[in-house]
């Protein structure tokens, strides 16, 4: 009969840390060894018990999420402007961050991406109430933000004001007719954005950005920059 498994091996088995070959060897031996098999089952059930006891159904506090999202921004290469307010960044670190976007990408694109991510996070949190009503007139009256007309098959899921260095921006989360979740970001600021959309990639997302008079826009969502460009074009033409 094969030799016994070591104690280490049995712990590693209980903790799911063996590769299939070693798992198979351990299981084959255990099948012939009721005492050790019972030990393993007892440990597996203790492990499950600890998981049951650790279960914590309380929702996470929105304030904590907001704080944590600051953390992500400061360390991400793209957030140099807000990164600077943390004061701890070295000049060398700051310099390396400027390069993250292609040259000429306007600064508000950072905000567009982070507001999109926050919107996607909110959408997954029951405690965060979305405001799916878009009152373009009220928005224009109180913020001077002028929104392009949205395609008829876009459904608005959330509308939020978002603070930026250049004043309040409006972020409209939508689901497109083909089920894609996008954010339209609009800021009343005369930026360097081109009149025709130009898109850059940011992780899994792409951002198309453009300008109309003194309004700067960005459209963010999952997918290729080319596809985001094409969707943004439909907004420019509207």
């Amino acid at each position, binding site marked *: 009969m094969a030799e016994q498994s070591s104690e280490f091996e049995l712990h590693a088995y209980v903790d799911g840390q063996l590769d299939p070959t070693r798992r198979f060897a351990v299981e084959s031996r255990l099948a012939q060894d009721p005492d050790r098999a019972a030990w393993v089952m007892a440990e597996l059930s203790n492990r499950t018990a600890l998981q049951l006891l650790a279960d914590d159904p309380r929702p*996470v506090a929105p304030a904590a999420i907001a704080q944590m999202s600051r953390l992500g921004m400061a360390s991400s290469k793209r957030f140099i402007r807000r990164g600077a307010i943390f004061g701890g960044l*070295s000049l060398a670190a700051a310099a390396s961050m400027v390069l993250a976007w292609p040259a000429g990408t306007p600064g508000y694109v950072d905000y567009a991406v982070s507001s999109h991510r926050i919107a996607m996070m909110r959408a997954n949190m029951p405690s965060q109430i979305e405001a799916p009503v878009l009152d373009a007139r009220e928005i224009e009256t109180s913020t001077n933000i002028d929104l392009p007309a949205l395609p008829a098959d876009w459904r608005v899921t959330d509308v939020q004001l978002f603070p930026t260095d250049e004043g309040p921006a409006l972020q409209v989360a939508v689901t497109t007719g083909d089920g894609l979740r996008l954010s339209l970001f609009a800021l009343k600021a005369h930026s360097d954005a081109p009149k025709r959309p130009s898109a850059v990639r940011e*992780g899994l997302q792409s951002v198309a950005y453009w300008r109309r008079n003194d309004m700067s826009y960005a459209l963010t969502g999952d997918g290729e920059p080319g596809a985001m460009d094409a969707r943004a074009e439909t907004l420019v033409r509207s």
Partner: protein
Amino acid sequence: MNPDADIPGDLIAMRRYARALTRDEQDADDVVQDAILRAIERERSFKPEFSRRRWLLAIVHNVFISSKRREAAEARRNDRFAETLERNPDLEQEQRVRLSRIASAYAGLPEHHRAVLHLIAVEGLSYQEVADVLDIPVGTVMSRLSRARDSLKQLEQGPSPLRIVGGGNG
């Protein structure tokens, strides 16, 4: 850091770990709050070879160790456990008794044993990852794990100080 970080998931893991260490919900929330601030402060100490989650768990651990929260009131600990049972109404009486014994045995473990058990059994970290989080050799992780499991088993077999809620013959 991963731009698509799962912030709610990170926070829940931080809270779970803080609760395993403090054995108290309110103290755990305080530890997490301090840990967030410390993480923001010490962002440059983030090592890219660490996962963000593990880096945050290590900060939770350090905050706990450096601030040494007061011992949780036994009553509050038991309340939390009673809630766990309420959330799992399908458990049979025998299993409820067993779970209660494990709960009190776990609460009675020294904190360095609870830390290792929690990170491995609940967070699913590998032994090497736990060694990184706690900044101890992997051999120490293994010996603590083995001792933690042994004492959990011994304590579990002792008399349970908890009264079982919702049972018929408690």
